[in-house]
């Protein structure tokens, strides 16, 4: 690509219209335009307010448990015999995944805006749980929209949300998964826009969401950068993260984008195989279009209808991706690859047995790719994998696939 890779370039997005190159923007119904403008003004004000930053940092430290450790997976690294692999342990956060970094931030915004009711969409349920958690803590009413199909495969998280006091609303339209949950959340927001804050769980949606979710999640990469320097004396040679909407990946990647020598790999859900069409890998096999408020790569047919996706992991089962990822793909800064269901399941077992860390099925996609990548590298090099979430929520799914009754 023609653009120079420099720190300035990455600090320049999104532009004032919310664009990352041709991607992003605000493709929403008129009713939401003033709510988005208000959110942007509030966020731009608070993001440079030291008191707000202090409140956010304090919550991350004392409520979430940050910084999360950077852990060297020595046994796995030795077994592979290539690069050293480090895991950024987002699974150790309160609620068990990276999602809470963002919900803490957005809940603080909701509080500052005086909103008493929050809504969220969820796929695997991790973002729903993280939203229900912050709602409980702040005494806010919480409604979580979840595809009826996902409610079946993530029953533990559904119950967790209910225990936390949230109302889980099953979405029965369309493919009954994450994209439909987001449609329904947007419909709710249009209806109750005056008193409701919509906590979007990923770096997608209309501007300013991709920007503010990225900013809240970037704590992952900032910590990893410091930890890498402290533990190895240098920056990592490569970063690996799974990509559904892409919030854990952006969170890890963003503070390193200007470091030319750090290679980056975003791992999409290859489902039954990208070549079969049954997957959730828009960056690997999709085309640009407009969905859920932003222009980005999508899985769509020749008529512009959004296609149904497939992934063993509910959290990656989404036909779009955050607009910044689309831009990073086009300018060649990040390599987007895919791992299939089978590869993720193999990695799930392999890492659980070798390191005693049970990853979420989403995360297992990143680990599957990291194994291959490390094998082609040398022991003087190191990789950081974002261990975005823990796998407890997936135990029943894995058991069902393997025909085991729990």
């Amino acid at each position, binding site marked *: 690509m023609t653009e120079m890779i420099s720190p300035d370039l990455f600090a320049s997005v999104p532009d004032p219209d919310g664009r990352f190159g041709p991607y992003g923007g605000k493709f929403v119904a*008129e*009713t939401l*335009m003033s709510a988005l403008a208000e959110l942007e003004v509030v966020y731009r004000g608070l993001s440079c307010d030291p008191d707000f930053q202090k409140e956010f940092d304090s919550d991350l430290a004392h409520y979430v448990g940050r910084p999360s450790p950077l852990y060297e997976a020595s046994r796995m690294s030795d077994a592979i015999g290539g690069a050293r692999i480090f895991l950024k342990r987002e699974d150790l956060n309160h609620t068990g995944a990276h999602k809470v970094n963002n919900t803490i931030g957005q809940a603080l915004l909701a509080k500052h805006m005086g909103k008493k009711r929050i809504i969220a969409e969820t796929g695997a349920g991790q973002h729903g749980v993280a939203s229900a958690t912050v709602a409980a803590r702040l005494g806010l009413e919480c409604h979580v929209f979840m595809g009826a199909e996902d409610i079946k495969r993530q029953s533990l998280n559904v119950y967790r949300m209910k225990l936390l006091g949230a109302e889980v609303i099953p979405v029965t339209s369309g493919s009954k998964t994450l994209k439909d949950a987001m449609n329904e959340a947007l419909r709710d927001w249009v209806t109750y826009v005056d008193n409701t804050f919509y906590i979007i769980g990923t770096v997608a949606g209309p501007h300013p969401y991709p920007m503010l979710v990225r900013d809240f999640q970037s704590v992952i990469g900032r910590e990893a950068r410091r930890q890498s320097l402290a533990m190895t004396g240098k920056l990592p040679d490569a970063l690996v993260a799974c990509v559904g909407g892409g919030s854990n990946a952006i969170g890890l990647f963003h503070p390193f984008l200007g470091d030319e020598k750090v290679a980056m790999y975003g791992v999409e859900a290859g489902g039954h195989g990208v070549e079969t069409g049954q997957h959730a890998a828009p960056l690997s096999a999709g085309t640009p279009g407009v*969905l859920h408020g932003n222009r980005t790569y999508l899985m769509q047919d020749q008529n512009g*209808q*959004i296609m149904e996706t497939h992934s063993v992991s509910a959290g990656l089962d989404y036909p779009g991706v955050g607009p910044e990822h689309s831009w990073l793909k086009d300018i060649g800064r990040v390599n987007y690859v895919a791992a299939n269901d089978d590869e993720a399941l193999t990695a799930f077992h392999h890492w659980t047995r070798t390191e005693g860390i049970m990853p979420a099925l989403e995360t297992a996609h990143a680990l599957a790719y990291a194994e291959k990548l490390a094998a082609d590298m040398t022991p003087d090099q190191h990789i950081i994998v974002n261990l975005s979430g823990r796998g407890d929520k997936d135990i029943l799914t894995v058991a069902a696939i393997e025909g085991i009754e729990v």
Partner: protein
Amino acid sequence: MSRLTPCFETLRDSGRKAVIPYIVAGDPTVASTVPMLHRLVAAGANVLELGVPFSDPMSEGPVIQRGHERALANHVSLTQVLDMVAEFRQGDQVTPIVIMGYANPVERMGYADFAAACAAAGVDGLITVDLPPEEVGPLNVELQKVAIDNIFLISPTTPAQRVGTITANASGFIYYVAVKGVTGAGHLDSSDVGMHLDVIRAETTLPICVGFGIKDAESATAVGAMADGVVVGSALIDTMTVAMESGDSLHDGIEKAVTLLGSIRTGIDNM
């Protein structure tokens, strides 16, 4: 110039209001759409709004969502919607047709090809729910080349200072969304509508039509007294589908919707 401006001028000169039905192209069947459009004109429709089915109709309530789902089950694409318009034009060269949908099918076709195809089919205007003025520039350039009106939504949450930005990009008419919410939802507060229409009229001489929440002759009349036209969508589709679910034939279901539109026409004309 499209058929919209002359249509509204004629209505204004005769002191009448526009009655605008909305149906989803290809719902409930592909073959029913064009005959239903002709029947709606016979029952008093002045402008027709034809929904382009989309997999993710984010601003629609359950009634119209189901309409989109039925149309997609019939494999109706944007190209076919335009074919339906062309077919309608063989029997009616006068009634303006506005197509209403979401950005992605248009993006996929490409703006220039889309505008040309609309012009060839006999489309007069376009409403794209998720293309606010901030995002519409490149498409508007193509639409203007072929004199197709781009119709924008203004909602109860649109700040007064933003109304001018919207009307500056608009032609044909302005579509005022009467309730915060999705199509077919909510209760219409006509005094609130009146207040907003005054704000819009201060910025534009374009006709203003009101939709979302108009269910019958009564609600249509309340709004029609203040606006230049009313849009009825969910109520028609609901009438049709409820009739068919309780055993009516396709023909009878459509006729019940047509009868509802006729009663709205009569109500508005006699107010």
